[in-house]
């Protein structure tokens, strides 16, 4: 078992760098303004993150242009980007697509992703759980792929798509397929519908392994993103209730709110342990990874939604408005709770893994 659940010094340094950068480049008013612009993705920020800080290649070996670190370090990036609800394609490209390509030993696309020169997306609905049936919406005929895929994350800016079809995985040039932007619940990570009108693909995996690895790793890192966002919600709320007065007292002095915030803090402390464990397992290829990821997603999906809902509620009227960041947190939180499998699907997966069958 991968039992080092703390953060190392290098990880804390990375966090410090990211937090300072995101505070400057992805403060919430800018993030909110961007949701109403034509460019959801902050390409400039992504250049700094991927090209400068090197967040896209952390888990990629050095010989493929990466940093040769692991998913543990990438998990710290997920936490910080989650905190900031930052509009960059980290999860889709640097986690899902990268994990898929690493799993199948692909070497053409990967170096470009690791260097931040290109981005890729796995062409599955963002709601796909790691244990879901292999997608069947794209058919292979000859060397051509035909079909469509709905609600793909980080797809609007992707250069390459990894398309599951016919039981394998194909790399497809983005220019070859049609993208239709989707009005999305999470405006900071809008989705996209894909149509493949008989396009050429390059087979990168002839089996299911790469896709499964991508979804499992993605779910682990998504839990870390949820952790970061939940912390942001709690901090925002705590700082509000300390300064908001009602009946001549800070509302944070009322025990009803205090107890709920204490409960939330306990849940987030647990979220840190389970998310850290899942990331550690994914990093080391631990045999316990499937259990760790299911636990992390089952727990963190609930915690992040609760944190965001309490953030709205405890802000009262202002939290219900467009001009306060709480709704950005709420929409991201609820979307992540559905992404890569809902909590109840992860519990169902767990029940098979730990021999607690439903009937």
């Amino acid at each position, binding site marked *: 078992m991968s039992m080092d659940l703390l953060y190392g010094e290098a990880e804390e340094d990375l966090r410090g760098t990211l937090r300072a950068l995101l505070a400057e480049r992805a403060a919430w008013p800018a993030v909110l303004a961007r949701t*109403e612009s034509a460019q959801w993705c902050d390409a400039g920020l992504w250049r700094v993150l991927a090209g400068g800080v090197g967040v896209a290649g952390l888990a990629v070996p050095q010989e493929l242009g990466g940093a040769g670190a692991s998913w543990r370090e990438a998990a710290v990036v997920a936490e910080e980007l989650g905190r900031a609800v930052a509009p960059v394609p980290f999860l889709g490209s640097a986690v899902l697509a990268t994990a898929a390509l690493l799993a199948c030993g692909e070497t053409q696309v990967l170096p470009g992703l690791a260097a931040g020169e290109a981005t890729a997306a796995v062409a599955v*609905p*963002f*709601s796909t759980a790691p244990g879901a049936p292999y997608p069947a919406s794209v058919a292979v005929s000859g060397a051509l792929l035909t079909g469509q895929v*709905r*609600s793909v994350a980080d797809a609007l800016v992707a250069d390459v798509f990894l398309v599951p079809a016919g039981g394998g995985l194909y790399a497809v040039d983005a220019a070859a397929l049609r993208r239709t932007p*989707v*009005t*999305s*619940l*999470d*405006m900071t990570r809008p*989705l996209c519908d894909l149509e493949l009108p008989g396009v050429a693909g390059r087979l990168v995996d002839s089996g299911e392994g790469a896709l499964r690895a991508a979804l499992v790793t993605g779910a682990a890192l998504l839990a870390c993103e949820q952790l970061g966002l939940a912390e942001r919600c709690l901090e925002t709320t705590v700082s509000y209730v300390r300064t908001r*007065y*009602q*009946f*001549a*007292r800070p509302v944070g002095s*009322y025990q*009803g*709110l205090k107890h709920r915030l204490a409960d939330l803090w306990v849940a987030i402390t647990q979220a840190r342990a389970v998310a850290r464990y899942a990331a550690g397992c994914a990093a080391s290829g631990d045999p316990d990874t499937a259990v760790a990821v299911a636990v992390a997603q089952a727990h963190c999906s609930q915690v992040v*939604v609760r944190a965001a*809902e309490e953030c*709205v*509620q405890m802000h*009262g*009227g*202002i*939290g*219900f*408005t*467009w*001009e306060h960041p*709480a*709704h950005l947190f*709420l*929409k991201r939180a*609820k*979307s992540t*709770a*559905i*992404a890569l499998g*809902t*909590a*109840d*699907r992860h*519990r*169902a997966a767990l029940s098979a893994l730990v021999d607690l069958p*439903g009937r």
Partner: protein
Amino acid sequence: MTEPVSADGVRRRVEEFLSRHDPAVLDRLEFLRARFGAGLAWVHFPAGLGGLDAPRTLQAEVDAAFARAGAPDNEPRRIGIGLGMAAPTILAYGTQDQRERWLRPLWTGEQVWCQLFSEPGAGSDLAALATRAVRDGDGWVVTGQKVWTSMAHEARWAILVARTDADVPKHRGLTYFACDMSAPGVEVRPLRQLTGEAEFNEVFLTEVAIPDCDRIGEVGDGWRVAQTTLMNERVAIGGGALPREAGMIGVVAGTWRERPELRTPGLHERLMELWVASEAARLTAIRLGAQLAAGQPGPEGSAAKYAFATLNQAISGLELELIGEEALRYDDWSMRRPAAVDFTGRSPGYRYLRAKGNSIEGGTTEILRNIIAERVLGLPGEIRVDKDVAWKDLPK
């Protein structure tokens, strides 16, 4: 006409009125003004002010008779604040001149009313409000910011509470006014919600002149006058016997039945828990209605609102998990200006987001729980640190 009118008397008047005023022929506004004049607007109001001093319970019958005759109505949803909150307050505290000036156009819908109570700094603690009204010769000059004002962009009049004395404890320094929304210095801006829409407005008051004849009630008596308004707001909640699976639970139950491919055992357990909770809330509302009809009014109104908010939020949250991929999509973020909430006409994502307001608007769940704990269970109130402190000295 000062003695109360009997049920038969009311019915006869409706018949007579309809025999003399053909709704198919008369102009809509003319018809409504005539109905008001005949005392058939709100029969429990005094004669001469649209009523007959008759029992309030007859109103439903009167409305039904007019509806059967194809008469135009006064679009009650559009003028809800006027009918439900301004009118009872004007009746209770207004001068005879004010009643005669305001009540008829209010009832006919010629003049829409809105409510200028809440402020950014005074949410649950309404009495802490900071909008100032300063004496200026024969009138007042009002400056401040109000928020959560529905219909402000269509309103001609507002009921307004402002601070006229900052040197006394907060409840004692307030005065109640009617504010002409077309007066210089009144600026209305839409207030956009997390759903993308703007049901409400912010209203900025910059040195708005209000003549003293538009003051309602005594100077310094605004808190008491406002209580009448707010009590009438709460009466509106609760009510009718809805059928099983009415409301949010019916929507998700329908999806469950129609789309077996979405079902999971985990969601089933939560669905059934929420179905039971919805049915319990429904039966409780029916029991509350029966109690009210039997003259046993209770504080269950607060509980019903609280249960409704909690259920709406839980059910809409479940719905998103049930539909999975589709829940990641939204119907429309554009800034619409709806007149009312539409829980069933829009997407599941809208329901989820809009339901978040149910535990904030019209009394947060925290305040409702305080009310239940203190007024129903008799538990001691919080230690108060704002008693007997001048408003200007309160921490804010």
